[in-house]
């Protein structure tokens, strides 16, 4: 058995806001190179949990590690070792393609030489070399997202967090984006992804489904479908999320 190491380990993680428990004693592990789908209904606690994993928020109790760094004591190290991309905020629209790459490369502390080399390789890989001087705001959404994803990987993080990366994207671009995710995971980067598209849940190695602050179930898509006697992940999700009590 080929045992990959766990790059995310979470134990009894809890976050309370006043008397409201947003995240309620959740525990799970994510292996290196895994595509891990983090699903849940609106208000189930996904965003709160993700903020803790990204080192942006401290848990009320419980804890864990991300790439070996402690969630409570080593938040700055965590931030340097992860990439993050969301559909809501990704790049600066009024900066050019190369300026965005330069900016984020600098933020992650890469040398000018490294940024230059990375930029060339990235633009070649994305087939965007001719677009380097375009304003990011003028790019079609699909290009923007591919660029944002690559920039989130510029410092070669062990893990990349993708928060609804494909919302509103046309069907073909959405699928090409997932092919980029597959290729990145094949190279050993761990992918932690949220989505509202249930077909995309099928593309994950394992999927966790949060309901009311707890993980209602976690397994491979095939095992989840079998356990809940559901034809697809949409049906699994609905069975679990309908148990939600809180609004």
């Amino acid at each position, binding site marked *: 058995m080929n045992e990959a190491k766990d790059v995310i380990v979470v134990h009894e993680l809890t976050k309370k806001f006043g008397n409201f428990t947003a995240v309620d004693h959740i525990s799970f592990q994510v292996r290196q190179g895994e595509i891990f789908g983090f699903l*849940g*209904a*609106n*208000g189930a606690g996904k965003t709160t949990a993700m903020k803790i994993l990204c080192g942006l928020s401290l848990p009320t109790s419980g804890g864990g590690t991300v790439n070996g760094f402690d969630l409570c004591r080593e938040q700055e190290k965590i931030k340097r070792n992860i990439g993050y991309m969301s559909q809501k905020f990704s790049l600066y629209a009024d900066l050019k393609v190369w300026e965005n790459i330069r900016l984020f490369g600098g933020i992650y502390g890469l040398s000018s030489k490294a940024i230059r080399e990375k930029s060339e390789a990235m633009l070649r890989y994305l087939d965007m070399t001719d677009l380097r001087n375009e304003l990011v705001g003028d790019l*079609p*959404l699909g290009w923007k997202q591919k660029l944002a994803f690559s920039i989130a990987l510029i410092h070669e993080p062990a893990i990349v967090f993708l928060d*609804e990366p494909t*919302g*509103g*994207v*046309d*069907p*073909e*671009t959405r*699928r090409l984006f*997932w*092919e980029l995710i*597959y290729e990145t995971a*094949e190279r050993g980067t761990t992918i932690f992804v949220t989505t*509202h*598209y*249930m*077909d*995309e*849940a*099928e*593309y994950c190695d394992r999927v966790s489904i949060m309901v009311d602050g707890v993980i209602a179930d976690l397994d491979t*898509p*095939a095992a989840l479908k079998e356990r809940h006697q559901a034809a*697809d*992940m*949409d049906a699994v*999700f*609905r069975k679990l*999320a*309908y148990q*939600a009590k809180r*609004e």
Partner: protein
Amino acid sequence: MATIEIDRVCKSYGAVQALNEVSLSVEPGEIYGLIGPDGAGKTTLFRILVTLLVPDRGSARIEGYDVVRDYRTIRSRIGYMPGRFSLYQDLTVAENLDFFATMFGTSVAENYENIREIYAQIEPFRDRRAGKLSGGMKQKLALCCALVHRPTVLFLDEPTTGVDAVSRKDFWNMLYRIRDAGVTMLVSTPYMDEASLCDRISLIQKGRIIETGTPAGIVAKYPHRLFGVSGMPAYPLLKYLRQCPGVLRCFSFGSEHHVAVDPARTSTEHLQATLEQAGFRQVVVREISASIEDCFMELAKEDQ
């Protein structure tokens, strides 16, 4: 007479053509879906129809009234739920509802029956500020505010974007009950799976309508034979399929890949054997019918 009649509407922002000769008509009592990705022109079309934006060319009529000339009449007859939450965050649930009722010269009490079913779900929070509501409750409040003056036509711009799969189903059930009360609806969505929930749809991309019809009618026009192929490992399988003879195109659809084929050059049995020979495990190849998403991808390609 059609409830909404759009005739060759064009709209540009500088050099960007947001709408290019868009025509469609919505019959009374229909839920009509405008389906397309971000940037397709959906919101621009909505703004023209609700009289917030004037088209460069072409015309549009709501219940026979012209969106430019008769904008005042139209405003009192329609309900509009914009894509971005646009209620007053620092007013309470009840205050927002009162405000919108007053703006339309009516009162909540007078129209309570019209919104009762939806409002009942948020009434326990009537004194909470709108900005403090959960996403699902904001959506219900926005819908109440759009319905409080008893409109006969309702415009819903991406009401389910960013909403989870369960709440989306609930929301659609609310729309059916509103339709049963006699309201005509135009609703936009980027989720292709919601197309089948509409009576009729138009697919829109880059400012142009690329297809119009019933969901079943559009699916029936898909031009290729389509196979659903699953097997392990999934991503290498996708790449392998793309270079198989007779395969026209191939994309992932959840647990299956959808493979458009030339039937003269391949068959389910033949493809099954080829994939097993190549070492893929748990291979299943079956003939399937197209979904709206398959059609959209096909039409979007033809359009380019």
